[in-house]
């Protein structure tokens, strides 16, 4: 059928193309206690390739689609250490429920997947805050409709390598009548690890026990003695003990081990609106626009945590990997340093009041693998230029309901667990009418209201990212 395709070059490259910010050096390696050779690589470690593409495929011909998958298998990167320099390209594969069903996975196996995955993200839009402009009827073509079957994530050291793989996939898939690309987003890291709003992003990740990657202080869970402990593997991978000291609910074989659930959300960021708001409101806020922006996020733009340095950014903290993420909320119950409603405090409350020293946060952690997309809005521009830009939010978790949806539904789209009533996350949430606000605690407090919408959902899918061996099983 498609034997003429050439293999991509897999040359090893000079490490300098990998844009890891100097203050976030690669976490140190250690012997892994998970079956890294069977796990798709980006679950337990983030890829630092500067270019990436998220390609959703619709499978037209199941037999040919499987043959295509079989051909790709050798190029799907596992979690095995790749030495000093990563390969020039890396590919990962995940399936929607519609995809698994479409390619003929048995009803028995299908029914072992949890309800939220079977329903898909679009069906759960209302509770996730995907209302109004975020609603699925406004999503990009190909997402949330059941047409997306497979997500290929491709990383590359440069556009040339990325294009090569994309073209290959497109041609092989289309010429054989196997698959069609129905949605695609190209993403590339902005300079110095910043997001479009100008904040240093991607700092905090759960430290996973025995993952082969050493965590930094603040990455794990508060250990109750002033330090941190790693999070159990089973929170992020099926087939391993989880934080409840049992095996996480998982689909049946061959999806019972080394696989995990993946959440994909394409989020548009209205940078001009964020700049205008911080500018306008910042004139009235006693701390000025920069502190106002920091209070909304919970970190200064350079990544300094407000908890560690509430009055000004501190380059020393940011430069020190052991300090950049090492902070807790217990001693700041009122939120005078970091507002209770600040974005990073909502999505990862650590040991905040009401969470019993972290005993009620450990089952709601996610591994984030986001990427920015679109060109930056030029410095100083206060009006939208009509360009699509934002974040491809990707996370991994053993249970979408218990982990991702708890964060999105109860902590981002609602504020009650923090005593914030119905308020949604001021930075990324969908405002609930004119009463939505953010309180910046102080004496007296400062209120920002109404809440503009800065982030809009452009589409999303719930996916399952199988183990390498399950991928092999799928090709037969």
């Amino acid at each position: 059928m498609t034997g003429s395709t050439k293999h991509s070059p897999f040359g090893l490259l000079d490490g300098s193309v990998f844009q890891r910010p100097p203050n976030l050096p690669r976490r140190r390696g250690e012997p892994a206690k998970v079956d890294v050779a069977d796990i798709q690589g980006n679950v337990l470690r983030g890829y630092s390739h500067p270019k990436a593409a998220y390609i959703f495929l619709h499978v037209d011909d199941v037999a040919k689609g499987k043959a295509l998958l079989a051909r790709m298998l050798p190029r799907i990167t596992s979690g095995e250490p790749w030495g000093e320099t990563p390969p020039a390209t890396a590919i990962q594969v995940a399936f929607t429920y519609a995809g698994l069903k479409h390619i003929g996975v048995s009803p028995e196996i299908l029914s072992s997947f949890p309800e939220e995955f079977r329903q898909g993200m679009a069906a759960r839009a209302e509770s996730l805050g995907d209302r109004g402009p975020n609603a699925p009827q406004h999503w990009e073509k190909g997402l949330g409709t059941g047409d997306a079957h497979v997500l290929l994530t491709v990383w590359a050291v440069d556009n040339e390598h990325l294009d090569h793989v994309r073209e290959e996939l497109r041609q092989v898939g289309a010429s054989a009548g196997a698959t069609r690309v129905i949605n695609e987003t190209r993403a590339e890291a902005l300079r110095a690890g910043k997001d479009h709003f100008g904040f240093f992003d991607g700092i905090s990740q759960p430290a996973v026990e025995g993952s082969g990657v050493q965590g930094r202080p603040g990455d794990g869970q508060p250990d109750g003695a002033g330090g941190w402990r790693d999070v159990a593997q089973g929170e992020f991978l099926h087939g391993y003990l989880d934080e409840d000291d049992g095996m996480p609910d998982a689909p049946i074989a061959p999806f019972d081990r080394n696989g995990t659930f993946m959440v994909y959300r394409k989020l548009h960021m209205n940078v001009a609106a964020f700049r205008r708001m911080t500018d306008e409101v910042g004139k009235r806020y006693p701390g000025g626009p920069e502190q106002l922006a920091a209070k909304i996020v919970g970190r200064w733009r350079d990544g300094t945590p407000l908890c560690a340095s509430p009055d000004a950014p501190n380059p020393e903290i940011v430069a020190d990997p052991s300090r950049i993420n090492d902070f807790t909320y217990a001693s700041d119950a009122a939120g005078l340093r970091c507002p209770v409603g600040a974005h990073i405090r909502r999505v990862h409350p650590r040991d905040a009041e009401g969470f019993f020293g972290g005993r009620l946060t450990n089952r709601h952690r996610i591994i984030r693998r986001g990427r920015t997309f679109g060109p930056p809005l030029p410095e100083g521009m206060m009006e939208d230029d009509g360009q699509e830009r934002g974040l491809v939010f990707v996370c991994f978790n053993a249970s979408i309901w218990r982990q991702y949806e708890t964060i999105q539904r109860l902590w981002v789209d609602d504020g009650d667990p923090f005593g914030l009533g119905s308020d949604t996350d001021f930075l990324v949430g969908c405002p609930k009418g004119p009463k939505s606000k953010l309180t910046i605690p102080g004496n007296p407090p400062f209120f920002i209201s109404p809440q503009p919408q800065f982030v809009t959902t452009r589409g999303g899918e719930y996916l399952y990212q199988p183990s390498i061996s399950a991928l092999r099983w799928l090709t037969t």
Partner: protein
Amino acid sequence: MGDRRNINGTTYALTVFTAIIPGHEKEVLAAIESVPRGAQSPLARLGTVHTSRLQIFDHLVHQGPSQSPDSLKSNYLVFTAAFDGELEPFLDSILDRIPEADGWWRHCVGYPGLSARAEFKRWIRHNQIHTSLFAVNSPNRSVSEVVESLALRDQVLEFAISAQGLDAAELQARFRHTFVEGK
């Protein structure tokens, strides 16, 4: 003595198990499922009921091998409520203002009907199971205090946002206008 165990502060926890007339289970189910929800609920009329649940209790769950099997001979309608004040005035308020109650209890054995006031009260008390321990998050707060407080909180917040940045004289004038003169 047992009766005081039902009370925490000014809130009373009532639990009533009444046996359903054999064969009337479907009617009871239909009756309780047709009780309007929310503000339309007949219980809303009383203004003293915090929470209430009506449900059918028709089976015991076998816990496992260490338990000797046990089963119910009758099916029960279980009525629970957490309300302000004592039981007697609560029963009076049902008698006076919730004619719908006949709809769910008339399928229960020995139900005398709302028209027989004394017998109704006796029947409820006879079927009441006293609470062993009742814990309340905000004790000594009536339904109306809670509802008013929720409304006031919204009003205060709205004011706080709109008055942010006003000078002292304006702030005081607007506060008086909103909260003092308006009353």
